[in-house]
C-alpha cells in the first residue's frame, strides 16, 4: 500500500527548504543584498568598477534566493489534486521524508507547532496523553487526512493548515474522544476549536485596510464640536484596526445598511441589553469606512453621542437644546456623519444624566438632514411610541433577534481571544460552553451574546494557573450570584450524603419528610434534576407544631448555608384577587416575592398556610412550579430554578391525627388524604400534581416532645455561654415540662413557652439571688421547677 503523503515530492522539498531559510534568513539576505548593491553603486560612481561589478553580482546573487523565498517558497500555491498538493507551506515544512506515516508519527512531527498547541491547550488535553493515545490507536491515517481536508473546506481555506491536520488526527482517535468525554467535553469540540483558530487566522490574514485613502474626507466638512462632544467610533476603529469578527456580517448590520440604502434617515435599533446593539453599530462603522456599502453611507463616520457627555457640557438646562442643535447642524453640514444615540431613552426623558430632546430629534429626522441610529430596548421603544408617536413613526425599526447557539459561540470565541491577550490567560473551550450554559440559566435580565461574554470576562479572575476552565466560570457564577453550580467537593459530598443526620441534629423524627427532602437536594446537587424547574417543590401537610417550618429552616441552614437563606411568605396575607400584583410587583415594595428571589436566588421559599391564598395567587404558583420562573409587572423574569419551594398547610390535620392514632403509617393513607383535600375543595388537583412530593408530618409523641425539650435546652445553654453557666435537666424535670406544655392541638409549639417558664425563669432568679455564679453547672430536677 502506498503512503498517503508524498513527502519526497518537489513541493515537499521546497517547503522544507523554505522553512530552513525562514523569515530570518529572508531578512538577512535582503540586508546583505541591499548593502552589496549600495556599496557596488558607490564604487562604480567612484570609478572603481572592477570592484563594483562583482559586488553588484553578489548583491543580485543574494537577492535571487530572497525573492524566490518571498514569492514562491513561503507561499507554495496549491496546484495539483493530491492531499500533499493541498498541504500549506507551514504544514508541509514540518513533515520530513522520514516521518512515520501514521497518526502517531504525523502528530509527533506537528506537536510543537503553535496550531497543535492551541488545539491541545484549549481542549485541556495533556500532550503526552495524546501521543500515547495515538500510539495505541489503530493506524488509520487516511481517515485523519480526509477529516483534515473536510475541515479546511469547512473553514473556507484552500490550504490544509497544521490546525486542520492536527484536528484530523485527534478526531479520528477513539481514545482521545473517550478522554474528552471523561473530562465532560465532547469529541465535536475538537472540530469547534479547529474552526475557531481557522476563523481567527482568516481574520488576521485579511489585508490591512487603507480606509478610503488620503483624499477620503476632503469633500466633507470639519467637525470640531462633534470631536469634543461625541466619540468618533470610526476613527477609533481606524486607529486600532479593530475587527468585529462574526458581527461584521451579522443580520443586524445588513438590515441597518439595507434601511439606509432604501433612503430612510433614522433607524431605531431595538433589542434587549446584551443582544449587541452597540456591536452592530461598531461593525457597521467598520463596513462604512471600508467603503463596503451602498452609496448612501459610503465612507460615513459614526459618531456616538452620549447623554451624560452632553449634559456635563451644558452649564444651564437651556444649553442642552443649544448643544444638540449645534451638534446635529455640524453633522448635517459635514455631510459624512452618522449620529449614533446609544441608550437613546436618555434623550427622551428627564432625570439624572438624561434630558428630553425629542422635539429636536423630531425636527432633525423630519428634515432628513443627517442619518441617525437610536439604540433602544423594546420597552423603551414602546414607551416612546406612547409618549411621542409622531417621532416613533419616523423611525424605521430594526429588531435584533437573539442569536443561535452557534452564533453566540462564535462571539464568545472572538471575545476569548481578546481576553486571552489582555489578561495573559488561556481560556479553555469548555469555559466557553459553560459561559453559554450558565449565563442562559442564571442571567435573566440580559440577552445573548452579551450575558455569556460578560460571564466569561468575570471568569478570567477565577483562572487557575492562568487557565480559565469550566470551573472558573462556575466559580464566577457562585461568587456573583451566591449559587452552588460547581461539582460538590469531597467534604460537601460527604455532608450531602449525611444530610439527614445534619437535619436531625435540629429536628426530632419526621424521618420520612427529612429523607424525601434530602433526596431531592442530593439529586439537585448531583445535577440529575430537570434544570428548568426548581430544585424541589414540596407540600408539607400536618398539624401545627410538628416541625414543618423547622424542617424548612433546617434545609436553609444545612444546604443553603444559613437560616436567613429563607424567603418566607405568609399566604394568609394574599387572600384578595389584587394580591397577585403585590406578589409580582417590580420591586416597589418589600412584599414582592420576585424582588426577594432576585436578591436571594439560592434559597428556600416557604409559602406558609398556602390553602389560605386566593385562587389567582395559587394559579401563579402553578407557573412558578412548572417553569421555574415568574415575570414581574415590568416584564423581567425572576428564576426559581435554584430554590427549594416549600408550601405548608394544616389542611387534613385531623385525618392525619386520627389515622396515626389508629396506628396507620403515613404512606398508607397519603393517597386517600390527597383525594380528600381535592374533594373538599381545599386544593385543586393541578396544584397538588405540580409539587414533586406531598410530605405528611405526623403528630409528635410524648417521647419526641421530650427530645424537643432537650434540643431547646441546648439553645438555652448557648445563650448562657456568655454568662459561663450551663443547665442540665433531669429526666423528671423534662417529663414535667412536657406535661406542662403538651397540647395535642398545638404540637411542640407550647414547649418553648413551657421551657422558658420552667428553666429560664428559674435560672434568672438564681442568678439574681446570687445562688448561681459564672462557671456553675446547674442541674434542675422536677421539684426545682415552678408549677
Amino acid at each position: 500500500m502506498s503512503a498517503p503523503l508524498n513527502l519526497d515530492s518537489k513541493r515537499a522539498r521546497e517547503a522544507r527548504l523554505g522553512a530552513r531559510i525562514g523569515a530570518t534568513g529572508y531578512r538577512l539576505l535582503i540586508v546583505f543584498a541591499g548593502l552589496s548593491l549600495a556599496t557596488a553603486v558607490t564604487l562604480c560612481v567612484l570609478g572603481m568598477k572592477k570592484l563594483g561589478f562583482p559586488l553588484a553580482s553578489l548583491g543580485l546573487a543574494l537577492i535571487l534566493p530572497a525573492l524566490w523565498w518571498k514569492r514562491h517558497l513561503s507561499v507554495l500555491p496549491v496546484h495539483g489534486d493530491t492531499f500533499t498538493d493541498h498541504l500549506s507551506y507551514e504544514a508541509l515544512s514540518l513533515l520530513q521524508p522520514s516521518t512515520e506515516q501514521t497518526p502517531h508519527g504525523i502528530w509527533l512531527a506537528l506537536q510543537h507547532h503553535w496550531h497543535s498547541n492551541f488545539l491541545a491547550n484549549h481542549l485541556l488535553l495533556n500532550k503526552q496523553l495524546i501521543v500515547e493515545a495515538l500510539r495505541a490507536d489503530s493506524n488509520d491515517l487516511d481517515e485523519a487526512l480526509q477529516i483534515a481536508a473536510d475541515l479546511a473546506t469547512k473553514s473556507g481555506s484552500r490550504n490544509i493548515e497544521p490546525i486542520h491536520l492536527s484536528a484530523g488526527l485527534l478526531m479520528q482517535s477513539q481514545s482521545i474522544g473517550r478522554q474528552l468525554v471523561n473530562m465532560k467535553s465532547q469529541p465535536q469540540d475538537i472540530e469547534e476549536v479547529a474552526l475557531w483558530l481557522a476563523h481567527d487566522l482568516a481574520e488576521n490574514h485579511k489585508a490591512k485596510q487603507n480606509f478610503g485613502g488620503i483624499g477620503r474626507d476632503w469633500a466633507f466638512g470639519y467637525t470640531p464640536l462633534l470631536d469634543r462632544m461625541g466619540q468618533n467610533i470610526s476613527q477609533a476603529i481606524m486607529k486600532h484596526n479593530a475587527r468585529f469578527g462574526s458581527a461584521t456580517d451579522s443580520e443586524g448590520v445588513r438590515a441597518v445598511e439595507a434601511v439606509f440604502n432604501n433612503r430612510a434617515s433614522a433607524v431605531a435599533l431595538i433589542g434587549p441589553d446584551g443582544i449587541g446593539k452597540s456591536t452592530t453599530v461598531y461593525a457597521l462603522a467598520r463596513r462604512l469606512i471600508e467603503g463596503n456599502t451602498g452609496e448612501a453611507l459610503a465612507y460615513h463616520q459614526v459618531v456616538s453621542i452620549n447623554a451624560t457627555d452632553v449634559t456635563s457640557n451644558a452649564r444651564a438646562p437651556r444649553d442642552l437644546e443649544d448643544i444638540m442643535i449645534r451638534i446635529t447642524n455640524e453633522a448635517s453640514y459635514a455631510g459624512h456623519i452618522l449620529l449614533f444615540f446609544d441608550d437613546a431613552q436618555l434623550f427622551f426623558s428627564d432625570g439624572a444624566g438624561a434630558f428630553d430632546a425629542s422635539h429636536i430629534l423630531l425636527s432633525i429626522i423630519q428634515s432628513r438632514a443627517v442619518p441617525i441610529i437610536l439604540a433602544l430596548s423594546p420597552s423603551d421603544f414602546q414607551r416612546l411610541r406612547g409618549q411621542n408617536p409622531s417621532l416613533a413613526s419616523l423611525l424605521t425599526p430594526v429588531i435584533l433577534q437573539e442569536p443561535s447557539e452557534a452564533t453566540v459561540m462564535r462571539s464568545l470565541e472572538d471575545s476569548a481571544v481578546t481576553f486571552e491577550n489582555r489578561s495573559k490567560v488561556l481560556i479553555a473551550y469548555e469555559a466557553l460552553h459553560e459561559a453559554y450554559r450558565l449565563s442562559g440559566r442564571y442571567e435573566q435580565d440580559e440577552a445573548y451574546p452579551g450575558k455569556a461574554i460578560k460571564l466569561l470576562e468575570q471568569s478570567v479572575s477565577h483562572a487557575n494557573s492562568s487557565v480559565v476552565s469550566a470551573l472558573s466560570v462556575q466559580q464566577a457564577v457562585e461568587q456573583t450570584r451566591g449559587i452552588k453550580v460547581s461539582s460538590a467537593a469531597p467534604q460537601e459530598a460527604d455532608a450531602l450524603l449525611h444530610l439527614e443526620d445534619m437535619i436531625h441534629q435540629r429536628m426530632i423524627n419526621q424521618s420520612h419528610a427529612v429523607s424525601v427532602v434530602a433526596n431531592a437536594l442530593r439529586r439537585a446537587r448531583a445535577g440529575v434534576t430537570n434544570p428548568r424547574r426548581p430544585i424541589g417543590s414540596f407540600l408539607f401537610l400536618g398539624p401545627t407544631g410538628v416541625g414543618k417550618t423547622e424542617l424548612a429552616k433546617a434545609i436553609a441552614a444545612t444546604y443553603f448555608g444559613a437560616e436567613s437563606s429563607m424567603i418566607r411568605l405568609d399566604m394568609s396575607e394574599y387572600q384578595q384577587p389584587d394580591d397577585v400584583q403585590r406578589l409580582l410587583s417590580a420591586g416597589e415594595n418589600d412584599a414582592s416575592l420576585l424582588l426577594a428571589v432576585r436578591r436571594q436566588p439560592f434559597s428556600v421559599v416557604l409559602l406558609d398556610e398556602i390553602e389560605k391564598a386566593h385562587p389567582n395567587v395559587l394559579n401563579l404558583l402553578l407557573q412558578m412550579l412548572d417553569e421555574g420562573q415568574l415575570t414581574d409587572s415590568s416584564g423581567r423574569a425572576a428564576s426559581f430554578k435554584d430554590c427549594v419551594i416549600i408550601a405548608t398547610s394544616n389542611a387534613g390535620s385531623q385525618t392525619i391525627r386520627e389515622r396515626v392514632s389508629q396506628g396507620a403509617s403515613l404512606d398508607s393513607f397519603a393517597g386517600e388524604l390527597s383525594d380528600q383535600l381535592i374533594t373538599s375543595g381545599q386544593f385543586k388537583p393541578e396544584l397538588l400534581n405540580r409539587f414533586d412530593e406531598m410530605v405528611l408530618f405526623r403528630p409528635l409523641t410524648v417521647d419526641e416532645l421530650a427530645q424537643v425539650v432537650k434540643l431547646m435546652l441546648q439553645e438555652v445553654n448557648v445563650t448562657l455561654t456568655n454568662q459561663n453557666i450551663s443547665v442540665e435537666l433531669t429526666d423528671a424535670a423534662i417529663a414535667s415540662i412536657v406535661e406542662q406544655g403538651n397540647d395535642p392541638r398545638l404540637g411542640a409549639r407550647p414547649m418553648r413557652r413551657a421551657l422558658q417558664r420552667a428553666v429560664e425563669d428559674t435560672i434568672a432568679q438564681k442568678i439574681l439571688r446570687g445562688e448561681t455564679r459564672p462557671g456553675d453547672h446547674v442541674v434542675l430536677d422536677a421539684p426545682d421547677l415552678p408549677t
Partner: protein
Amino acid sequence: MQVAHSIKGRLRSIQSSFSVNQLSRTLFAPWRKIISYPGASFQDKVRAWGDNLFSRIIGFVIRISVLIAAAIAIVLTVVLTVIEIVLWPLLPLAVPVLLIAGFFI
C-alpha cells in the same frame, strides 16, 4: 494569469490609497465644505460667490495634484511590473554577466 492578477491588485491598491474615485467625483467641490452663504445685498452675493469659487479652486488644485500623483504611480507601477516580468527570467543571468564584466572593465 497570476501576473495579471498581481498588476490588478497593485493598481487597485493605488486607486484606493490615492482615493481616486472620491477625488474624481468631487473634483470641483469646495475644499472641506468651507463655503460662504450669500447675504441679501448684491455685494454680499458677489463676495460669497468669490469666496466659494476660491474654495473650489483650492479643492481642485489639491485634488488634481493627488490625481496626477496617482496617475504617475499607476504608470510607474505598470512600467515596473512589465520590466519585472521581462527581466525576471534574465535576472539569474545578470549574476555571471556582472561578475565577468567586472574583470573586463
